């Protein structure tokens, strides 16, 4: 059996809806247990409000659960793919890249050595010394993606597979991500696209009303999910 890099044991988390002394807590996740195995791609599926974003926050270690335990071996970092770490528009691409890389755990020297690679990967080496404020939106996206792909954590959390930039770079970036997902990178992928989940994931976890409804082989879980009609209750899915 593969090494387990993260494990949830009966995790529950509650939030207050309003900033008031009298509002009561509501449980968003009630009872989540699963093991994340090294190198696997775990898909997460569920209707709106099922707690997927909250699950990502717990996985990224941003907040602590109210009940249950999350165990991770020391030194294992998990983070969302961050395409925009709050670029400072007055600083050059180089300075912003160094700031982002160091913030994500690299040493200052390591990140300085990566700069030329990052510029070339995003095909913006000529822009690295210019202030980010003068970049076009696409160029900024290229810089962001290039930084992100050069600083992948042990566990990569993805909220949908996204390509960024113009048509050409969008293809390159989403291909690169898919390749990462298929390699021995450990990935948790939250997606509404059943096709993406079937294609890319080894296992899929289906969350419903704060509990794991099903966890197993991607094909099987996704099919079961699709066969279950949405509850008659208000249909909240917006097509934007």
């Amino acid at each position, binding site marked *: 059996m593969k090494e387990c890099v993260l494990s949830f044991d009966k995790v529950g988390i509650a*939030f207050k809806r309003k*900033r008031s002394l009298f509002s009561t807590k509501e449980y968003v996740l009630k009872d989540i247990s699963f093991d994340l195995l090294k190198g696997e791609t775990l898909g997460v599926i569920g209707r709106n409000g099922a707690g997927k974003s909250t699950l990502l*926050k717990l996985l*990224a*270690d*941003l*907040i*602590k659960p109210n009940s249950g335990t999350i165990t991770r071996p020391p030194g294992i*970092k*998990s*983070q*969302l793919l*961050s395409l*925009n*770490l*709050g670029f*400072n528009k*007055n*600083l050059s691409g180089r*300075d912003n890249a*160094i*700031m982002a890389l*160091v*913030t*994500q*755990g690299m*040493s*200052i020297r390591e990140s300085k050595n990566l700069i030329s690679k990052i510029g070339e990967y995003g095909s913006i080496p000529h822009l690295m010394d210019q*202030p980010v404020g003068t970049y076009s939106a696409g160029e900024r996206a290229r810089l962001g993606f290039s930084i992100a792909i050069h600083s992948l*954590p042990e566990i990569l959390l993805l909220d949908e597979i996204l390509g960024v930039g113009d048509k050409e770079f969008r293809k390159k970036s989403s291909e690169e991500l898919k390749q990462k997902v298929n390699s021995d990178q450990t990935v948790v992928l939250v997606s509404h696209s059943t096709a993406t989940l079937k294609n890319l994931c080894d296992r899929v976890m289906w969350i419903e009303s704060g509990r794991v409804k099903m966890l197993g082989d991607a094909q099987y879980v996704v099919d079961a999910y699709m066969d279950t009609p949405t509850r008659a209750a208000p249909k909240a899915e917006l097509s934007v």
Partner: protein
Amino acid sequence: MLRNALSIIWVRGIGALKADSENSYLGTLWWVLEPLLLTALFYVAFSTGIRGNGSGSTFVYFLICGILPFKWSSSAITGSSTSINSNLGILSQFYLPKWIFPTAVNLSMFIRFMLVLPLIMAFLSFGGYAPGAAWIHLPLIVLCQLVLTLGLSYLTASLVPLIPDLKHLVSLSMTAVLFTAGIFFDIDTRPEHTQEILRLNPFASIIDAYRTVLLDNQPLSFAELLYPLLFGGIATLIGAAKLYLLDRYYLRVMT
């Protein structure tokens, strides 16, 4: 872990300074120009005809020893109080220890003051306050003010994300401190009873110490610095403890 945290503080602190200097035509010059203009402004307001007791020339030196050090603390504390909120973008993407942010603000503000301090000393020397042996004590005062500033920064930084209402109070309190720290007047000239109350303000002792050393060229009485140092030390402990204990709580209430 700590090594990385220190690198982050360094990179962000220096980055903020760089960005600030790129943000205007005069750039870095403003770090010096702003305190100078501020002093000039207060000078005009308080010591010339407007206020009316023409003791102008000595008053400006008296003022400069108070207002410029205070400016450092006040920018650092106000900046720190919103530092967690203004980095929410990064914080909602991955985990970072929250104490990094007020510390980075303090680093850049400290560096700025280190550029202003020689300016104060030069200005005083030209004005006839020759550097004397007592100036050796200056680093002690700076250190003491640093502890106090850091402590209050941690304290406000740890509270404002939880109680956003406090944001409005922080800058107001800094103004209150400004008017009660004896920056515009000599506390010793006030009635006994008022003095006692005014001396509760830890900044009063610090500014007093700057003047003792820089203007009077008298050796420092260390007992005087004990109060702000203790005040700062306790604030640092409480603030740091809060930041540490609530480290993974902030994101719950902020997003």
